[in-house]
């Protein structure tokens, strides 16, 4: 009996010790903190043409320039411009798609050439756009980009249809 009591009395403080040491390590010697982690996956930006750049119907004769602004209005300087439903006038229009609220930069060409009958040609340059150089994709993930330019018509330009192409590039900023 005496032996047993003695044994227990020795064991008890040891147990207390063990408990104490355990608490000390977990509560005071160690600490944790949690951080948030995030990543945003962005869809590739795309641009799709929805309308071509159309200078409309122009009467050959004196040379000059025909400008289409991004809002599709036409300014003629030199040759006469006709209004005809079969030969509409419009700025080029593009739909830009990407992640909502991101901004994008716009690169316009310097010039392009329209070719017509008998290898005759005209130059289009002074491209302008709305928005001008930087746009913002709206909350729905799209944006509209309108592009105009200036056509230079030669004196006694060969009559006929003239066509060409130009490329607009957009990039996330």
């Amino acid at each position, binding site marked *: 009996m005496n032996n047993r009591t003695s044994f227990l*009395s020795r064991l008890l403080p040891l147990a207390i010790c063990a408990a104490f040491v355990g608490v000390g390590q977990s509560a005071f*010697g160690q600490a944790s903190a949690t951080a948030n982690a995030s990543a945003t996956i962005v869809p590739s930006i795309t641009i799709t043409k929805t309308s071509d750049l159309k200078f409309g119907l122009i009467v050959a004769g004196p040379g000059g320039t025909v400008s289409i602004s991004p809002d599709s209005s036409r300014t003629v300087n030199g040759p006469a411009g006709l209004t005809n439903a079969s030969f509409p006038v419009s700025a080029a229009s593009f739909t830009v798609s990407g*992640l909502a609220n991101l901004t994008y930069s716009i690169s316009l060409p310097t010039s392009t050439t329209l070719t017509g009958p008998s290898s005759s040609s005209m130059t289009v340059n002074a491209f302008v756009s709305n928005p001008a150089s930087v746009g913002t994709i709206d909350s729905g993930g799209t944006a509209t980009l309108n592009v105009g330019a200036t056509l230079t018509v030669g004196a006694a330009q060969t009559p006929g249809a003239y066509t060409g192409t130009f490329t607009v590039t957009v990039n996330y900023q």
Partner: protein
Amino acid sequence: MKYRKPFHSASIFVTLVCMNAVRFAAAQGGVSSTASATTTIIQGMSVTNTSSLRFGAMIPGALGGTSTVAPNGSRSATGTITLLTSSSFPSSAASFNLLGAPNLAYTITLPTSVILTRQGGSDTILLAAFTSSPAASGSLSSTGSGTLSVGGTITITGSQAAGLYSGSFTVTLAYQ
């Protein structure tokens, strides 16, 4: 009585902190033994998160790849990933403020991996290869403070659904 002594001495030896209790036991058992014991009470360590781990915005491209934020906050990518630099989607390493006993060394335990989940969806991104600065262990300053920065690597596929992915991870520090 002789057989008790080695046991008793051993107790004292391995549990210096609890010397008083052991000595109490000795008194009860009728055996006395004297040893000196010293205990230094140190301030417990605390860790506070001050900055999230942000990978910013990226375009997976055709094949995807990995994107890494280093503890110094710099970003890099492999595969066909294009990293975007946008003020709308800042990137940063996670940062923690440490507080504890002056000059004490500590060890750092980082998670192995965690899952980031797309907001409004169930798509996931694995965040792993955690790195930290200091790397595995560090020392608190003479005023008992410190800073811990943590980076990691995410793996994304070429067809990773667009959106904001988020999750959380826990770092644990212990006095050495």
